[in-house]
């Protein structure tokens, strides 16, 4: 056998892959966050056709697997004349995927702000944009933080699918090493461990934020 087992170079290669996983997660979160904000605003738009359009968009994205979305962007855009690297295809599909889910989460948060807040802001003669920006969003952001952090875990985990279109992130890096030393159990366990190290702090943080929020939202005794 040529293989000499797992060594420090392999670990370095894996950690380099993990860096790309984080990179792709960041692209997906920022891009998806911006697009998701637009989706959330469209979902609560006073113009009915915009609301419906956003609704249909969310339903389509949430009703198809991310993997299929990834293939559609990978092959679809390459036939449009653009040769796509794995990173670009993965980024595009992740941004679309994240925008639908975050948009829906944020819509829920915006709508969970008490109706009376809208009415009170309206009584103060604020325009719709002002109401949203000055009254509703600051309250919605507080409600939205725990589920958003929780969803970041999903983002990090789902970047693993980018390995399928050949982008060398954590899983792909592991597969490449596995091809040379063939110790799948060890390598995939190690990969799982690295994912856990990236995701668990986010999960714990999300839970902590949620606990704090529940404490604050608890009805206070009347004085």
């Amino acid at each position, binding site marked *: 056998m040529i293989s000499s087992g797992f060594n420090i170079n392999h670990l370095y290669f894996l950690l380099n892959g993990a860096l790309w996983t984080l990179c792709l997660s960041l692209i997906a979160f920022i891009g998806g966050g911006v697009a998701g904000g637009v989706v959330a605003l469209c979902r609560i738009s006073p113009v009915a056709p915009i609301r419906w359009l956003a609704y249909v968009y969310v*339903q*389509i994205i*949430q*009703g*198809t*697997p*991310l*993997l*299929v*979305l990834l*293939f*559609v962007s990978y*092959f*679809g855009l390459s*036939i*449009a*004349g*653009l040769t796509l690297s794995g990173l670009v295809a993965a980024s595009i599909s992740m941004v679309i995927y994240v925008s639908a889910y975050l948009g829906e989460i944020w819509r829920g948060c915006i709508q969970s702000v008490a109706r009376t807040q809208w009415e009170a802001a309206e009584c103060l003669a604020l325009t719709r944009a002002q109401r949203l920006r000055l009254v509703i969003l600051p309250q919605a952001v507080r409600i939205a933080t725990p589920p958003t952090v929780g969803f970041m*875990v999903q983002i990090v*985990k*789902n970047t*693993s*699918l980018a*390995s*399928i279109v050949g982008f060398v992130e954590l*899983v792909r890096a592991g597969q490449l090493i*596995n091809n040379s030393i*063939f*110790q*799948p*159990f060890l390598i*995939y*366990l190690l*990969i*799982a461990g690295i*994912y*856990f190290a990236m*995701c*668990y702090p986010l*999960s714990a943080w999300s839970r902590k934020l949620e606990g704090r929020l529940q404490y604050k939202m608890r009805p206070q005794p009347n004085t």
Partner: protein
Amino acid sequence: MGRMIYEFDFSSVLAEWPQFLDGAWLTIQLSFPATVLGLCIGTLCAIGRRSSVRPLSRACGFYVEIIRNTPLLVQIFLVFFGLASLGWHVSAFGAALVSLVINVAAYTCEIMRAGMDSIHDGQIEAAECLGLTKAQVYWHVILLPAMENVYPALTSQFVLLMLASSITSQISVEELTAVASHVQSDTFRPFEAYILVAVAYLALSLLMRIGIWAFGQIVFARRRKIKVMG
């Protein structure tokens, strides 16, 4: 400069419809047992997590955290390639089903636990006062109402599971996504093949939502009555 106008041609892809049908059937064969088993194991795990026996609740919590913080793709690879390298060979379908069940049970556990935590102590005390046995209390007062409370969350989770079963194509399970990649390499029409499969998944998730909703209408007849009255 590439062609800017692409002419869609679904005919060659649509001609392969029997393959797509087989793929959809395998997706259902994966999703249905995984949903049922995941619900059972997840509920047991939720009961374990709420248990006052410390090691048991710790073990259940540990399992949930491990699964929820690692990607399904890696879990599938670990079960399929990892176990095989340890000398324990499982078929691709078996490995796919096992990893889907392990995965969805962890999420179900969290959802069911939240549902069970939402049951008021007063309800349980009242049931005990009525002379219900411990098992009766658990089934009628804790489990069923808890499930009723979290039914929408469970529905979404199981639809997500069905969508996630697409990942099992990576260990050569011939479900919908795998069929699409065969068809696209035969017909050289990847865009059309994957769009068709996306539509198939949309239809499947819609069917699944309707099916789970109908099941809920039968099981939770009480809620239906309350709604009629209210």
